[in-house]
């Protein structure tokens, strides 16, 4: 699968992130920073939306320090905001008080990738961080290692993330295969 390589305008990048947050929340996602990290990984590396974030396999699966910085900027600009939840739970993200200005000016970028955002949201919005970590790691292993079969990839996942049980890694690898088979680029 071709890797997305074209860089996106920073405002368009921001518009897509905010729209992804909106769709995830609409789909019932808790939408914490970890949820957003994993779903953004699928948006870029499964549906090929050229968002300007590089990912490594780090905390809880694929992680982008670029996206971490982007979230910080969007929070500072009021384009996203944190919704505090009752302890013990962490905060969630939601569109901020100025998000409507971003949508009005750069909504076309989010519209251009509406199909991709909807696909990722529909498949991942109902997943918790544990499941997203497994799926994200499965996709990462699929795209970045020489392992081919689901079994090989599951073993690779367990090697890199020992806390993931083999049976669950195998199911995650198969789920990723189903998603990749179902996604058809326009």
């Amino acid at each position: 699968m071709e890797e997305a390589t074209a860089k996106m305008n920073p405002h368009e990048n921001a518009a897509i992130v905010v729209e992804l947050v909106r769709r995830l929340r609409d789909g019932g996602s808790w939408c914490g920073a970890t949820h957003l990290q994993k779903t953004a990984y699928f948006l870029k590396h499964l549906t090929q939306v050229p968002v300007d974030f590089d990912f490594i396999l780090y905390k809880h699966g694929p992680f982008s320090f670029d996206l971490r910085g982007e979230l910080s900027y969007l929070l500072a600009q009021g384009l996203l905001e944190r919704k505090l939840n009752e302890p013990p739970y962490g905060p969630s993200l939601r569109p901020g008080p100025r998000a409507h200005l971003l949508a009005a000016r750069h909504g076309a970028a989010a519209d251009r990738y509406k199909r991709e955002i909807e696909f990722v949201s529909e498949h991942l919005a109902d997943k918790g961080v544990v499941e997203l970590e497994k799926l994200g790691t499965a996709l990462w292993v699929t795209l970045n290692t020489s392992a081919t079969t689901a079994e090989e990839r599951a073993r690779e996942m367990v090697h890199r993330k020992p806390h993931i049980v083999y049976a669950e890694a195998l199911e995650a690898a198969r789920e990723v295969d189903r998603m990749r088979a179902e996604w058809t680029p326009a």
Partner: protein
Amino acid sequence: MRDVAERDLFWERGMRRGIYEVRDPIHTFVHFDARERDVINSRAFQRLRHIHQLGMSHFVYPGANHTRFEHALGVMELAARVFERITRDDLLTDQVRDLVPELADQYQREHWLRTLRMAALCHDLGHLPFSHAAETELLPDGWNHERLTVELIHSDELAHIWEDSPPLNPDEIAKLAVGPSQVNDSSPKNVEAVLSEVITGETFGVDRIDYLIRDSYHAGVAYGRFDHYRLIDTLQLLPPAPYHGDRSQEPALGIERGGIHSAEALLLARYFMFKQVYFHHVRRIYDIHLQDFMALWLPEGRCPVDLDGFLALTDNEVTAGLLDAAYSGGDELGEHARRIVCRRHFRRVYEPSREDLEATLDPTGEIYAALRNRFGSEAVRHDRITRASEDISEPLEAPEFPVLFDEQSVSSVGVSDVLAKVPEATVDCIYVHPDLREEAREWLVTKKRDILGGGGDGEDEPT
């Protein structure tokens, strides 16, 4: 360590070599062994004596002349304290022992402590003159100070130190020194991910703890001080806070409940230091002027990335160049130099108000474009912190972290009203040539409403 004899030899050598100490105004004493002393005596590390920790901030805070040399020593001292704390046997949960077994084994733990200390010592080796100020535009594509740091860690000058017994792995040192995102490793090991947080972690990284306290002390700004002794004494590796009953397994650096006030003090100190010192508007424009100067002064407008050329370039050479240019010529280089040396810096004329931010997406961008059209691009500068900016590599908002509360891990913002409300610190303002300040301000008073109502996008990038 292959056998008991080798382990005993390791300890014996350590005892024979002795421990050295140097006084430090922040930590009282910094201790190091002979091998660390070899690193300290290297050309790469000694160069840090001539790199200001706070760039050009001494033009605003005259006492801020401290350097990255003593900061790196301080980070090493703190890194060891944190490591000893979080790897204490009674604080390592079964989950952490399973995921990071290296921390539960005495001899592997000793290896990782040595690696961490060296990483702390080396973490700033690759800084350009005047630290972040000159980096963004002055290095070739693909280069930053982290990459230079990694190159120096792998250089011939330091290689013999790593090869000494017991051997240290420069790849591991580099990963802990600059964080996994800056090293060509897309899948760090659990122990590397955990320990990289000790130095570069966005909440409790000791790099931040040392520079906040040290910068506060030297700048004479009281807001940066907090009880870091108490904070370190409550650090622990914890599972992340849950999301609606769902919790990831990988540990993160958090605190016991008793440390919440020291953590609040840290994050407030961070916010105040950003607003008062790091984002001070005069300091920021000096950074911009320095960048303009160096782009003309350096051969081909680029800092050298060959190690000999890089190590030969410090604040001293740049300062000499500034003084020479400021007083010897009327050319463009002299003009840039005089903005710094003779305090002919650009003056701030606009920051967005709440009303402006409610009216349009990018008011500063629109004002910037309009001022450039009116007064010329050379007379106007826009300073903004964006995700792409190289001069801040941490969140603008107070980071979230786990807190051990009644034997479970909870989110910091859920248990602390203070942490939930610490605002983001950011920068977004416009400067003009000092001779145009009054005219620009008067012009904006009459034109701002038209500019912001015009529907422009302010696409120009800040310079």
